[in-house]
């Protein structure tokens, strides 16, 4: 048990002041920040490449040329400094990291060699393609088909929620390779190059403002070397990766960087981080707003307990461990941001950039964004199923219709 502060000794201070900050000054240009703000996907290719060149782009992902790398404390410093400049969005590249983990574990040597340089240079990014318009939580119900044709596969179908696909080079997707067996048994995993003929990426807006994508595949030809793992065994791979996404994974799986960091620092990413930033904005507003009767908003006892309640929720989210955190972090985020809209009142409704917007419209944005947190990466209902079955040992079940 250890919650002690990490001292900024001379070396760490030097790293922050002489390496990280100058790097960010140079690379996080207004242009990069504007692009991130507009799309909210959490990465901008030019910045990715710069990180890679510096050796700071998740160097643990695939075997390959060595890089400078960062120890967990160094990585945390970089995260914090990034977050301070970019604001609540700009998540760590979770999907890409997940894909690379699967590639490292299940990709052929040939594929790994092919990808290594590009990944290390930050020029190859991958997104996920599990969800389809007709299947989300039931991820094994996919309809996308892949048919073998010599050394190639011909893939046809639709994927949804492939966030970042318009900026990525690959999508890791599940496709049905055998329709004649039980649904979990006929799925194969592929890392599909997005530049293939027959593939079309179309943007779709979300309530939170981020762009996500449909990926349409119309007889796209994909070489067999892009297959990940054995034919018809893709479900096990996808479930492992889903489990990691749900925070159910153990420290040795895809989650390893997170697991490693967990023992070192409080996570700076995740929704509890966003809620903390939104709370800070509301606290700033309350501390600097003087009412017509001359009192400060923050002197109102009712306001104080409501803000304290949210501070409590932030701490609860932060210190509730995985796989439990996802549920509570989303629940309190949705509830608390809704209350902050009320607390700030009419001006909280104004969009960023409009006359009278409060704290850059952050609460208005967060209220919309919050609705996605119970859905991203599998709904909180699925997460509760997992907790009930795998942690509490309650019976697995499925629903069947009566009559």
């Amino acid at each position, binding site marked *: 048990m250890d919650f002690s502060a990490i001292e900024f000794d001379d070396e760490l201070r030097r790293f922050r002041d002489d390496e990280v900050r100058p790097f960010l000054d140079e690379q996080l240009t207004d242009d990069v920040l504007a692009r991130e703000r507009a799309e909210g996907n959490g990465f901008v290719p030019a910045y990715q490449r710069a990180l890679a060149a510096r050796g700071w782009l998740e160097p643990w992902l695939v075997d390959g040329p060595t890089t400078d790398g960062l120890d967990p404390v160094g990585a945390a410093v970089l995260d914090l400094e990034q977050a301070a400049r970019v604001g609540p969005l700009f998540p760590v590249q979770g999907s890409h990291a997940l894909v690379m983990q699967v590639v490292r574990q299940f990709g052929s040597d040939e594929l790994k060699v092919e990808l290594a340089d590009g990944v290390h240079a930050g020029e190859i990014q991958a997104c996920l393609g599990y969800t389809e318009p007709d299947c989300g939580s039931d991820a094994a119900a996919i309809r996308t088909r892949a048919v073998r044709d010599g050394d190639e596969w011909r893939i046809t179908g639709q994927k949804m929620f492939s966030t970042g696909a318009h900026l990525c080079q690959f999508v890791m997707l599940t496709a049905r390779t055998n329709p004649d067996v039980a649904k979990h048994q006929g799925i194969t995993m592929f890392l599909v190059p997005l530049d293939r003929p027959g593939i079309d990426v179309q943007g779709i807006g979300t309530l939170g403002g981020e762009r996500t994508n449909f990926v349409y595949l119309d007889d796209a030809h994909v070489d067999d070397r892009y297959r990940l793992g054995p034919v018809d065994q893709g479900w096990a791979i996808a479930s492992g990766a889903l489990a990691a996404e749900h925070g159910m994974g153990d420290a040795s799986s895809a989650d390893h960087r997170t697991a490693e960091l967990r023992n070192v620092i409080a996570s700076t990413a995740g929704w509890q981080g966003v809620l903390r930033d939104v709370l800070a904005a509301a606290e700033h507003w309350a501390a600097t707003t003087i009412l017509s009767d001359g009192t400060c908003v923050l002197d109102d006892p009712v306001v104080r307990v409501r803000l304290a309640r949210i501070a409590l929720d932030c701490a609860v989210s932060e210190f509730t461990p995985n796989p439990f955190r996802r549920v509570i972090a989303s629940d309190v985020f949705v509830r608390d941001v809704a209350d902050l809209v009320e607390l700030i009142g009419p001006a909280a409704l104004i969009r960023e950039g409009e*006359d009278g917007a409060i704290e850059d419209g952050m609460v208005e944005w967060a209220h919309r964004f919050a609705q996605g947190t119970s859905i991203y990466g599998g709904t909180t209902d699925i997460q509760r199923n997992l907790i009930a079955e795998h942690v509490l040992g309650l019976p697995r079940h499925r629903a069947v*219709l009566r009559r």
Partner: protein
Amino acid sequence: MLRRHDVSLAPEQGELRSAFAALFEKESPPARVRASEPLGFDRDLWSTLVAAGALTMSLPEAAGGDGGGLVDVALVAEQLGRRAAPVPLVEAVVASRVLARAETSRIATLALHPVASAQRQLVPAGAVADIVVGLEGDELVAFVGDDAPVPVTNLGSAPLAWRTLSGPGTRTVLARGRDARERFDVARREWKVLMAAAQTGLAQAALDLGVAYANEREAFGVPIGAFQAVAHALADVAVGVEGSRHLAWRAAWYSDHEPEHALEPALVAYLHAREVANRAASIAIHVQGGFGFTLESDLQLYFRRAKGWAVVSGDAHDDLRALGDVRYGTPG
């Protein structure tokens, strides 16, 4: 005290409700709601609504109205909410009742917050209203500004704008002192009653969209509505909507029949309705999963309006404080 508790609609009330349900279904489909954004105003729909008598039904006959009451308008407002109709009916009815005249060619609205002097405030329908009624100091004022209002893009795609009650323009004092304050309080209370009805409509629509999706969308071989996680969440929304509707009716009834006791019912109805509407939309989005979070889903229209239409009147906790004041007197 014993009170009747009759929540049935009279035949003519039922007909009114059906007629406006049909009007809004036809004239305010999602495509037209979307087309009205970000301003949140559809002038043709407004003309249709005025022609249908929605604005004047609750005005005295002497003022060119139909002599109906707030109950009638509440029935209409619920249907308006159900289709997220981009028309400032609630504001215009309430303001017209203060003015005691049917403003059919100009749009009147109510500035919901009393101000000491020429402070600006965010006014519902302020981006499209010609006349702003409100309380400035101890004067109840109708103000027609010279400058065109500037719409402010906002969460609920409502036609909000920063407005004042004085400045360049024509300023008419309708009342002063206690009379002014009382008439303003009545108007604000009526706005909350009608908004409670409108929020009930938003909640009903969100529930309907959630239920329809839960019946269609399949997962694990069954419609997702067969899972209690989905079914119970929607059942809770239904519980909220039914209470919200009856409380709104009751609040409107008190406004019409016992205005001296109408504040507590109004606050209760409004507090419950806005909470239910926000939760209904949030839960229905969750039920729709990834699709619900995209802008393709109509749920986002309702979700944004739930808070967007209500919070312009202020923090719900202020209504809770007011409810405390009604029950316990002003503190100290």
